[in-house]
């Protein structure tokens, strides 16, 4: 049996060795790319799996938007591919198809029929009255905790910021918080044209600040155009970039193809601004750009025609060269 003095010395030696090893490894650990010590609490606890949880909470928010009426993994979720709370903001192109009211289908048997009395079985949206059809549209606030949690878990998810800000501004009338959410979004995702579009809407509709709205929408257009490798880099203003882009044949990059709606929204909003300010040639140019990404170019063509009419361009014969 070892004497207690030896045990104490052994313990001391182990402590010294442990301390020395920790001091030796610490500098290497701090520079190691896999280190989680620099991140926030969620980053440390969950690592990259936090994105998965973030998505779950985002879906949870949409479930709240429907007051609990939501398809499970066993149900037909074709009508819920894009969160309705996002689609209803008007800035997200929807992939939904099918019957959103009847994803449960016809009753399968008596157990299924009886069971439907004990869970939400009717399609409603919180901003339209919710489950009891009596609540005010401000009840949409109930989706916010899950969106906030989702944004905390995955700060790179752009849609979380835009959806949160839209509902805060539109239904809660809480413009300062919406503004703060969007600025946080820009800090985390500086290249997001979606956030710039939403921020422009906030400036335009809530603050009635046309100049700032124009600036952020122009920045949004510039960021969207830069997704195309053919668009020149550098600090060219969006008005110059768009002129070159409209003249070129349409050749959208895959990311641009998935985000045509936001470009259409950006350009049509800019066109509206220019139209209101009497700058009709520039408004026409924005609408022509919008036509390139729009699903309904004929509607925009009518607007362009109306603006050209106002400009008097239709009465000026355009002399085309004969050669």
């Amino acid at each position: 049996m070892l004497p207690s003095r030896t045990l104490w010395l052994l313990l001391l030696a182990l402590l010294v060795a442990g301390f020395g090893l920790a001091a030796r490894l610490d500098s290497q650990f701090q520079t190691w790319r896999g280190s989680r010590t620099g991140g926030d609490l969620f980053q440390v606890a969950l690592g990259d799996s936090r994105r998965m949880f973030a998505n779950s909470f985002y879906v949870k928010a949409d479930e709240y938007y429907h007051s609990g009426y939501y398809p499970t993994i066993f149900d037909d979720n074709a009508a819920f591919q894009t969160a309705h709370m996002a689609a209803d903001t008007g800035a997200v192109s929807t992939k939904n198809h099918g019957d959103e009211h009847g994803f449960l289908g016809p009753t399968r048997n008596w157990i299924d029929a009886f069971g439907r009395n004990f869970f939400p079985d009717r399609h409603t949206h919180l901003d339209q009255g919710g489950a009891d059809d009596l609540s005010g549209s401000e009840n949409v606030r109930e989706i916010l905790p899950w969106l906030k949690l989702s944004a905390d878990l995955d700060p790179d998810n752009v849609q979380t910021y835009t959806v949160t800000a839209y509902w805060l501004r539109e239904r809660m009338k809480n413009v300062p918080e919406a503004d703060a959410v969007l600025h946080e979004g820009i800090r985390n995702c500086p290249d997001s044209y979606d956030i710039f579009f939403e921020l422009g809407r906030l400036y335009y509709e809530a603050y009635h600040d046309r100049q700032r709205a124009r600036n952020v929408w122009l920045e949004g257009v510039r960021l969207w155009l830069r997704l195309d490798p053919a668009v020149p880099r550098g600090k060219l203003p969006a008005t110059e970039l768009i002129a070159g882009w409209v003249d070129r044949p349409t050749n959208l990059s895959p990311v641009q193809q998935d985000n045509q709606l936001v470009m259409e929204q950006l350009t049509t909003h800019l066109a509206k601004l220019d139209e209101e300010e009497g700058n009709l040639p520039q408004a026409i140019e924005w609408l022509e750009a919008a036509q390139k990404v729009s699903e309904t170019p004929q509607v925009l063509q009518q607007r362009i025609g109306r603006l050209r009419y106002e400009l008097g361009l239709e009465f000026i014969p355009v002399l085309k060269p004969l050669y």
Partner: protein
Amino acid sequence: MKNISAVAGIVIKELYRRKDFYALFIVTVVICGLMAMLNIYNDTNIVRYLKEICLDLIWISSLVIAITTTARQIPAERENRTLLPLLAKPLTRTQLILGKFLGCWLACGLALLCFYLFFGALAASREHHWLLLNYFQAGLMHWFLLGVIVAFALLGSLIFAAPSSNATICFVLVGGILFVGRNLDRVALTLREPTRAIVNALYYALPHLEFYDLRDLVVHNWPLVAWKYIVLALLYASFYMAVFLIGACLVFRRKAVN
């Protein structure tokens, strides 16, 4: 009935002497209190997330209380060698089983009452109104669900070797039914025979505990469920309670008590 209520009284006393309920109740209160303190965009009227978290905690706590309390009843009597003296008194085995069941079920009811009172107070503090009938429906359905689980756990305590294995099996089965029970027939469609027939048979044979989960309706302020459906669901639960209790009585009759 006197004997049954005497046994039941002992079980209820056991619940409030043990620390399980207090610990779970305090944990629920603390977590809900912390969640209520969160600042969500300076809006103090947001309540549904809080109701959902509170109800989830109540469900977890009630399942833990029901299963663990019931699973140890008969094994503990055996282990302490009190089962034989108990049965030497004018108390039949059926009365003992019924007494244990009633005691556990009533104990769960008392625990639920405390939990739902807290839930009501929490919801009212933000919503500024009481949906008393909705909470009553949810609590009543929840209590009958626990009745089925208590009866099943009692049967399990006579079949399975140890309380721990019985409790684990109960948790797995209850969790499975709550999550998949409603869609078991759809799962069956993806399988081949004879598994399909077996799963289909299970779908009709298993107690559909998901009927008793009114959490979504309560959280999102849906209107009341029609009372005729509530009554039918309670009858359905009573049927399964009776089935498991008769099973437990039959097993216990043939069981050696020493």
